[in-house]
């Protein structure tokens, strides 16, 4: 905490300095640095992680002598997770600060608001955390217009796929589970997620007994858990991001005897344990990577470095935006140093980067998910982590796992079976 605030004070001081030095609108512009705009909400753990990791990536590149001699500069903007703010920040990045590409936001609503602007202003734009299928769908449907947008995180469909994959390996197989209830917040990214859940869960042998969507403003989850319990499922499959602490804590305090697995974005952040006072124990979520899990050679060093710098471990957006800075950098190199948007797009499409999350490639225009990150073995599969007394332990895939799945005492497996 204190370290964090310290860091923020510094950031603030710097910012104030900036305001003082340059009169409004006249920020210094040097031709030989490559500017990348990064937009995220500092107040949100995921957002803060997003910008910090990006800066780290740039430092790393510059430390190695930059991009064929040119420094990479990250300019961060706070969008307060508001679409309007984000669009304005995007415009500022493009026409004021003359960035060559923008990495922005992990919230689908915001990303979808920026996307048309990236098209209009011909500005390469990557989201390191939003999930909605619509992002890449737009590119697919109107490639020439939307081709500047890339999706630097798995689309909802693939997240669902990942969840189904490890549910199959861990629950259906060894634990003979047969039924599930899908519990998602009512938001842009969960619509395709739920569709995919409802499609793939039965395929792996989990009958979906009920499908509950709730208002993201919900603070009292008691009714929802009761409703779920009445269906007597073996497992709750979650799709939550805007909420996370509250349902988890209430799940724990009410001792809902059913395990929660799936996607719970807040559970991927390292502060989750403190925020929930340990109620997170046993929660399983899908995420990009985790501390101490060597998905690739660069994963662990990144996490250690990040933790050293900021005193916390990165949230999933951190891994993604760290990788995306590198992806952009490599693309520029591939484009022969050119930062021309259209050349850059072509270069980005050729991406093949071994990042902290895995091997990163984007689908081509023929694929339904044009410019979305490829999912699959040998590429990015994501991992499943479970909170076990204060730590995020990797429990899937087996070859990466550093722990076994274990549930708190109040979880009664096979609530329905016997």
């Amino acid at each position, binding site marked *: 905490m204190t370290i964090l605030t310290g860091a923020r004070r510094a950031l603030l001081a710097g910012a104030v300095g900036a305001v003082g030095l340059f009169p409004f609108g006249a920020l210094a512009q040097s031709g030989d640095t490559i500017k990348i705009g990064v937009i995220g909400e500092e107040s949100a753990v995921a957002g803060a992680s997003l910008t910090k990791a990006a800066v780290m990536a740039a430092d790393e590149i510059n430390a190695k002598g930059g991009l064929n001699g040119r420094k990479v500069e990250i300019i961060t903007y706070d969008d307060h997770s*508001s679409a309007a703010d984000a*669009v304005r920040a995007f415009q500022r990045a493009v026409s004021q600060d003359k960035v060559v590409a923008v990495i922005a936001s992990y919230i689908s609503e915001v990303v979808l608001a920026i996307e048309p602007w990236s098209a209009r202003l011909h500005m390469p734009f990557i989201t390191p955390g939003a999930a909605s299928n619509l992002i890449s769908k737009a590119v697919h449907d109107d490639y020439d217009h939307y081709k500047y947008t890339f999706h630097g995180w798995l689309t909802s469909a693939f997240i669902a796929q990942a969840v189904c994959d490890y549910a199959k390996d861990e629950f259906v197989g060894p634990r003979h589970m047969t039924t599930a209830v899908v519990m998602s917040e009512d938001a842009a990214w969960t619509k395709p997620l739920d569709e995919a859940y409802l499609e793939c869960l039965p395929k792996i042998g989990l009958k979906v007994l009920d499908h509950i969507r709730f208002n993201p403003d919900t603070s009292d989850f008691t009714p929802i858990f009761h409703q779920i319990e009445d269906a007597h499922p073996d497992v709750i499959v979650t799709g939550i991001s805007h909420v996370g602490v509250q349902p988890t804590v209430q799940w724990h305090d009410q001792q809902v005897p059913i395990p929660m697995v799936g996607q719970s974005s807040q559970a991927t952040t390292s502060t989750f344990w403190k925020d929930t006072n340990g109620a997170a124990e046993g929660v399983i979520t899908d995420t990009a990577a985790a501390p101490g899990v060597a998905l690739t050679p660069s994963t662990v060093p990144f996490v250690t470095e990040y933790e050293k710098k900021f005193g916390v471990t990165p949230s999933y957006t951190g891994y993604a935006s760290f990788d995306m800075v590198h992806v952009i950098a490599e693309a520029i190199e591939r484009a022969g140093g050119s930062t021309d948007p259209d050349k850059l797009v072509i270069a980005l499409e050729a991406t093949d980067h071994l990042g902290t999350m895995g091997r990163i490639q984007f689908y081509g225009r023929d694929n339904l998910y044009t410019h979305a990150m490829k999912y699959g073995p040998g590429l990015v599969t994501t991992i499943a982590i479970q909170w076990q007394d204060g730590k995020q332990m990797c429990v899937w895939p087996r070859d990466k796992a550093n722990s076994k799945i274990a549930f708190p005492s109040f979880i009664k497996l096979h609530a329905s079976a016997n």
Partner: protein
Amino acid sequence: MAFLRSRVLWIGAAVVVTAALLPLWLSAYLLGVLTAAYYFGVFAMAWDLLFGFAGEVNFGPTFLIGLGAYTAAILNSEFGLPIPVCVVAGALAAVVGGILLAVPALRLRGPYFGLVTLVAVLLLQNLIVIFAGVTGGEIGMTVPDVLSIDEKVNYWFALAFLTICAVLLYGLSRSAVGLILQASGQDAVEASALGFNVTKHKIAAFCISALFSGTAGALLIFYMGTASINTVIDLAIAVQIIIAAVLGGRRTILGAALGAVVLIVANEFLRPLGQLNTFVVSAVALAVILFFPEGLLGYALHRGERE
């Protein structure tokens, strides 16, 4: 006053001319900021007509704006109607909504009226989420047509729109009706004893306010290219509008526009403060309310009168 009015006229003209020339110097981005600010200015002026003159505190300006914006957006994306038609329809929708809200609500006083307008926003918000099929729910919707992708054109258009609205609303506030409205807002009993149908005039004020809010809302989404809850409906927007009007000076119409521009530009100017810019802006606004309750323009005018 007559002298003062003409002075306002001249200053106004000067301001507009300078503003029109800004694209010569300002970057596209700054123009973008000002463009948004100008639409905001119209929101704030419309609000001031209702509060400053009719004396009704409307906590839900975004209810009217949202109606205009979403009607236009839906017509455009669902039925592909041309922008002008959508804007007109949006404006009408706002007026109708305004009447439906005002007629019963105007019986209420003080916080009650405020609360009802506030709840109206929340309900609209929920409705949009529920009918996500048409409205795009939380994602909001992308409208196929935009006014223009050229910042300058957008800017001049917004400026022209703001100017027209300012002239109309300011003129109205100075007109006979404006005088009557002000009287009704200040002391309804006395106004009616002077032979004025207070309710009629207040409803009219509400409609006019709705008309301008709706139109501006519709145009705004055709500038932004997207209509989403947190761009045109969210209470945060309503709060900004109210702050803008109070900041610029109640009962001045023009002050509201001024306040809006100041507020948005300040917000942008302080963006380097990152997450804290909202904090600073609110603090400044609070300070103004505490120390210059007259508002920026109100303060200036009052000084003018005292001299």
